[in-house]
């Protein structure tokens, strides 16, 4: 009796949650099934199971007479883009966050406010200006150019989040380090940085995901095939609305998602920790 009673509410919760998440789950299941079939009966029932759609992994894909760039080039570029973005964002964000949190310099309050404003800027609004700048610098159609632009757009938010973590570190710990014989910089990297590791992990995860899913800037500023990334690759598959191979599109979409899923599985612990406690996992 007792166990049934206590199980009942959780059962209801599961049913409600199941119904709500069903459309999303079904969409992914459809995507997966679609990538392994040539045709779907009534659009939902898979027939003719095949691996044809996945052959982009081991051979070149030709669509509409034009050969697509290799998926591995795109994947490598995506990793390069997301990885560099993460590293740059962390280095600059952690330093800027510390300065905003701890150092007293003129214009600090003003800077805090304007960084927030900067973050509110949609990148679409900046496209033309960014084009001129990249062109002037000779970084147009270069991954590094877009990495710099994306980093600049991300820094304000990163610095803000990191600042919050630094704010939580007590002055006492820092002073103790100074008295124990460290310079300010040494205190920063031997004592303070390890204390905000959860924050750094969170920011790194978000930065990587933002880089992995970036589309607009890459699509606008990258033209050549050797610099293509996965998001742009997907777009290329859909560029001609009359001849879209939905099976191939589904397969590439899933391929695009796999790293994110793996990444999430490995990092969800630190991700959740941050969300649940606001970052005080010290």
């Amino acid at each position, binding site marked *: 009796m007792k166990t049934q009673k206590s199980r009942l509410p959780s059962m209801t919760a599961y049913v409600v949650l199941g119904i709500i998440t069903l459309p999303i789950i079904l969409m992914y299941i459809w995507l997966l099934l679609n990538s392994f079939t040539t045709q779907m009966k009534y659009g939902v029932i898979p027939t003719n199971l095949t691996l044809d759609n996945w052959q982009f992994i081991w051979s070149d894909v030709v669509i509409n007479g034009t050969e697509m760039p290799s998926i591995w080039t795109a994947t490598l570029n995506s990793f390069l883009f997301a990885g560099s973005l993460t590293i740059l964002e962390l280095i600059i964000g952690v330093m800027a966050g510390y300065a905003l949190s701890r150092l007293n310099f003129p214009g600090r309050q003003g800077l805090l406010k304007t960084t927030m404003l900067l973050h509110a800027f949609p990148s679409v609004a900046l496209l033309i200006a960014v084009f001129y700048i990249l062109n002037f610098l000779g970084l147009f159609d270069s991954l590094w150019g877009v990495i710099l632009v994306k980093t600049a757009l991300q820094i304000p938010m990163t610095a803000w989040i990191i600042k919050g973590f630094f704010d939580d570190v007590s002055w006492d710990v820092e002073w103790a380090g100074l008295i*124990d014989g460290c310079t300010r910089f040494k205190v920063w990297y031997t004592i303070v940085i390890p204390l905000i590791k959860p924050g750094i992990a969170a920011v790194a995860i978000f930065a990587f995901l933002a880089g992995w899913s970036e589309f607009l800037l890459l699509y606008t500023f990258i033209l050549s095939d050797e610099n293509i990334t996965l998001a742009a690759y997907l777009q290329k598959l859909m560029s001609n609305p009359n001849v879209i191979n939905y099976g191939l599109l589904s397969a590439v979409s899933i391929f695009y998602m796999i790293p994110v899923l793996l990444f999430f599985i490995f990092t969800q612990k630190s991700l959740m920790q941050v969300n649940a406690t606001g970052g005080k996992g010290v």
Partner: protein
Amino acid sequence: MKIELKQVTKAFNKQGNAVNDLSLTIQDGEFVALLGPSGCGKSTTMLMLAGIYKPTDGTIYFDNEPINHVEPKDRNIGMVFQSYALYPHMTVLENIMFPLKQMKVPKSERVFRAHAAAEQVQLGHLTARKPSELSGGQQQRVALARAIVKKPRLLLLDEPLSNLDARMKIEMREEIRHLQKEIGITTVMVTHDQEEAMTIADRVAVMKDGSLIQYSTPMDLYNKATNLFVAQFIGTPPMNFISGDLMKLGESYTFQENQQSRLIGIRPYDLKLGNQGNVIMNATVSLVEPLGHSNLVSARIGDKLVRFFADASYRADRGTPIVCSADLQKIAVFDKSTGQSIDTEHCIKEAFAV
């Protein structure tokens, strides 16, 4: 190490000074407590000794050497913070070794000395743990071991006992005192607890609003307060204050209330029931609180409430008129406007009129 502060001033903004014209000498091997209510500048003073803050004005000398611009890391000091400020990502041993590591002491010696320091604070069996796995008292000991491991010239203790429970406090108090005497290190402790300062320190510097009010031994603070503030601050239960004059009647004196006159201060332990003392006052009982070993009596003398101790068997109802007395030598007299202590003679009047 002998420490000298000469007219040290610290201002954080233009509104006022956190520490004002402070001059203080601490002898080698002495244990000095900086005592005062919160916001009196005692922590600021300590952080100036540590080198975290630079004095706005004045000079601090370590062994006659001005050190105003010496960085904290070059001062060779140890400090225990109120929050302990242990490094949570390091083990206890790593925490204690940290100052030695900064001094580039070889690894084997580092481990040896850290273990010795841990033994000194009775932590030898816990060196492999992380600070988060220790109790408050144990964390306190780690902080202490970390502060003394490099054999600093000066030990700073910032409210080291305020986060401990009452029993632990007394235990740690004795231990710190013992350790300080054993290694003979000059020590400065900041506290707002007068009992702590009185019991642990060789000399106590009472501060208020950024200024030094009195700097003397605990006994002198208790018996010869130079200032009303010190008299109020030191001692539990606090000193009784009545305002009035003493009328001389032969060998003894009677108290006559006078709101305009000086303040007469009498310690609760010096005020006695009956008329054995030579200063005799009439009072009415308002409350008798049993404390076990004695009774704490609250009574009114004129307008003022005073407290003193009576025998454990003493019983009295509210409103009972009583006579209490004290010795003239035990009485302190303060000027109402300046707060300065003055000679007892000033409030004695010949009772011609009576």
